[in-house]
């Protein structure tokens, strides 16, 4: 094992007053694969974004190949030989594989693009990585897993010595994962690269990882050779986040069953999901990023198409193919992405709150009753203590917490039976969080079935009556919150279908 090629010491980083990295020290050697592990929000991505120049640090020092650097820009990081492969694809889908690989560094001859030269070099890079792909294929025509490989080839074509991979296998098939691991070993052993490998799939690590660094709550808490740690050691290191916030739990006997999802499948991210919800019950859906939780709520609400399965309300099947069907049935969804799905940011708070409720606010001929509307909006603003000068200001001008309250307010004026929240507290301050919890409790006390998706495990354990755990599009576990522990939930949340082993067996 070689010399240190990255040495970070005492890195600090805050976003709007919240410390997301606390005195983190981190290092990487040449010729090793370092698995960087931690729960959602532990600070892994932030740390990697500082290394690749996307964010600047507030404090601490970074040394790459032994020389110290101030704030890196993405271009400087690239020139130093640091390449990052993001979880999401960043490709121009209308261009060819070679054009994507050479994007921004096109080879020019006589003032013209040297197309054949670029195709030749791209073919060499692909061949070196044993990727079977034509350099002139159009990226949009490739499968998602092939596109992921293009991303990897693009990163390696810059002659990177330090490679950061964020969940690179989530879209790959078993054979492609094996190929990728082959590539990673080759880069490690022959090219003496240092590789940071971020993954939630702990079972994969045995194939490649030399060393493990575990992060928790913005701190790097342990770094040790992989061989010295068992899986259960790793899980217990990852959890144990102290529960700082107070969760206002209220008790209520649950009523009759009101809502049931049976064998629901939708796209690649929701596979044969079944669960039930009772009156006056608060159910949390836990899981890691990409577990299919948001997709589940979207399928229930009729935004994404359902491939199969049933939705029952009070024992009778309801057919939901558009959001309006769900709303009329009494099922509402406060979506995850406020800016994209939740708010018309250029309309006023009043117009946003009124939008899904216009049916009840209109008189004959669809004329909006402004008095009813103002009363309703004033009441919502007061109930949710949304801080604003007047409801006429643009929704987009509010703070995150207040925006989230407006999204919630849209749905509370309805006579709903089931209310679904997707990440209701993401990116908002602690005071607003508590207000949102109290609101969910209030709905529960009124006998409404409340379902909420959250990536914050303490939050799920703090206020849910029952916890459903999802992994890879399936429900992998269910606990009453009294029985739930963080390690039990995390174990279920990482229960991936062992696709590498089973598929290999199928092939044999």
């Amino acid at each position, binding site marked *: 094992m070689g010399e240190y090629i990255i040495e970070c010491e005492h890195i600090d980083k805050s976003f709007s007053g919240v410390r997301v990295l606390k005195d983190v020290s981190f290092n990487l050697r040449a010729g090793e694969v370092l698995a960087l592990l931690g729960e959602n929000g532990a600070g892994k991505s932030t740390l990697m974004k500082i290394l690749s120049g996307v964010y600047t640090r507030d404090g601490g020092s970074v040394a790459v190949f032994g020389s110290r650097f101030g704030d890196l820009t993405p271009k400087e990081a690239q020139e130093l030989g640091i390449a990052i492969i993001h979880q999401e694809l960043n490709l121009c889908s209308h261009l060819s594989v070679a054009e994507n690989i050479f994007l921004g560094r096109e080879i020019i001859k006589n003032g013209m693009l040297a197309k054949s030269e670029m195709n030749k070099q791209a073919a060499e890079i692909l061949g070196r990585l044993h990727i079977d792909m034509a350099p002139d294929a159009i990226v949009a025509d490739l499968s998602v897993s092939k596109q992921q490989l293009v991303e990897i080839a693009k990163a390696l074509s810059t002659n990177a010595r330090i490679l950061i991979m964020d969940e690179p296998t989530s879209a790959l098939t078993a054979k492609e994962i094996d190929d990728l691991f082959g590539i990673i070993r080759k880069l490690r052993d022959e090219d003496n690269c240092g590789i940071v490998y971020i993954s939630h799939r702990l079972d994969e690590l045995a194939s490649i990882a030399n060393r493990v660094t575990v992060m928790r709550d913005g701190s790097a808490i342990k770094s040790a050779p992989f061989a010295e740690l068992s899986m259960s050691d790793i899980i217990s290191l990852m959890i144990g986040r102290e529960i700082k916030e107070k969760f206002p739990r209220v008790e209520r006997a649950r009523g009759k069953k009101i809502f049931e999802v049976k064998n629901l499948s939708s796209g690649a991210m929701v596979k044969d999901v079944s669960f039930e919800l009772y009156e006056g019950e608060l159910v949390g859906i836990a899981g890691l990023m990409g577990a299919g939780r948001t997709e589940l709520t979207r399928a229930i609400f009729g935004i994404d198409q359902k491939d199969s399965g049933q939705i029952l309300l009070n024992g009778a099947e309801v057919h939901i193919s558009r*959001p309006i069907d769900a*709303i009329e049935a009494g099922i509402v969804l406060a979506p995850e992405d406020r800016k994209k799905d939740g708010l*018309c940011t250029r*309309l006023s708070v009043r117009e946003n709150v009124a939008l899904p409720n216009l049916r009840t606010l209109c008189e004959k*001929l669809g*004329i*909006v009753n402004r008095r009813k509307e*103002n009363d309703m909006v*004033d009441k919502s603003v*007061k109930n949710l203590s949304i801080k604003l000068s007047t409801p006429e200001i643009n929704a987009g001008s509010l703070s995150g917490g207040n925006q989230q309250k407006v999204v919630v307010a849209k749905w509370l004026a309805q006579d709903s039976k089931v209310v679904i929240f997707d990440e209701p507290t993401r990116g908002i301050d602690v005071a607003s969080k508590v207000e949102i919890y109290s609101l969910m409790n209030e709905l529960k006390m009124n006998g409404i079935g409340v379902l909420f998706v959250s990536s914050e495990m303490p939050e799920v354990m703090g206020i849910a009556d029952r916890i459903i755990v999802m992994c890879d599009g399936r429900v992998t576990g269910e606990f009453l919150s009294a029985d739930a522990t963080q390690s039990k939930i995390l174990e279920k949340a990482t229960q991936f279908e062992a696709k590498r082993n089973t598929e290999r067996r199928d092939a044999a």
Partner: protein
Amino acid sequence: MSGASAEKKRGFIGRVFAVRGMAQVITVTIGLILIFIVFSMLSDNFTSSRNLHNLLRQAAPILIIGIAQSYVLITGNIDLSIGSVVGMSCMISATLMTMGVNPWIAVVITMACCLIVGLLNGWLVAKCALPPFIATLGTMTIARGIAQIVNNNRNTDSIGAGAKFFRDFFYYGEFVGLYSTVWIAVALWVVFNFILSRTKTGRHIYAVGSNIDAARMSGVNVTSTVTKAYLVSAFCSCIVGFIACATGGVGTMDAGNMYELYAVAASVIGGVSTLGGQGLLLGTVIGASIWSVLQNGLILAGAPVAIRNIAVGIIVVISVLLDIIVRKGRWAKKH
């Protein structure tokens, strides 16, 4: 409760200013007044009662197509077929009347044809998800072709004495001191402004233009909302076609040529955003007025056509640029 009492305290002026987009309408109104003063100094005839009457009558069709385009722009789309629908309406109604069809029956048949174009626009854009620029570019060409084919690629003869009431109703008549064309524009504005600002449909039009995903997730039927906007556009364009027919007493194949772009100009000068979700029909009134005052005033001041075109083009660009600069300034302050 505190919100309600604050509402009362602010009074009428305060409430007018609180309406989103009103600030920009007031800015362009000041611009209109300035232009008006300049032209009244340049030419004595400009402020004569006769010229002001004509000016209002010239502004009326521009306002009507402005309403048409504003509706579509607020949904975040565009309607390029407006001018061709004007031509189609003019030619179909005139051809029917020269064939001896009762003018009012001709009006009903023509309106039906124009609304089909609006329905087609809505279907292509909202249901088939064609880019609105392309979809309405297609219907623009088709509608112009129909305008040419209805009378075998010729303008029509005079629509005849039987159509006198038709011509008075849409152009020559006067009522309480104003030409009937002006009254038609006022009536359409009152109705469509009410729909846009006071009804559920109007609210949905703003919501779709502001954020189509959020609107859909709030239970808005996006397809029907967009189609309604295109139907309003076709309806208004058809009325302008009648006005064109009544004006000359003949059907002309190139009636309404370029009107779709004049309509964009009237809308954006008045503060309607081409990105959707933003704009007031009151602004469209000011936009159409600025447009008409410029045309009329420059003619009276003796400016040749070329100068008129250049001046109007500059005004369109400057008014939108000013809006962007003002907005950016506010943006920069906030961040």
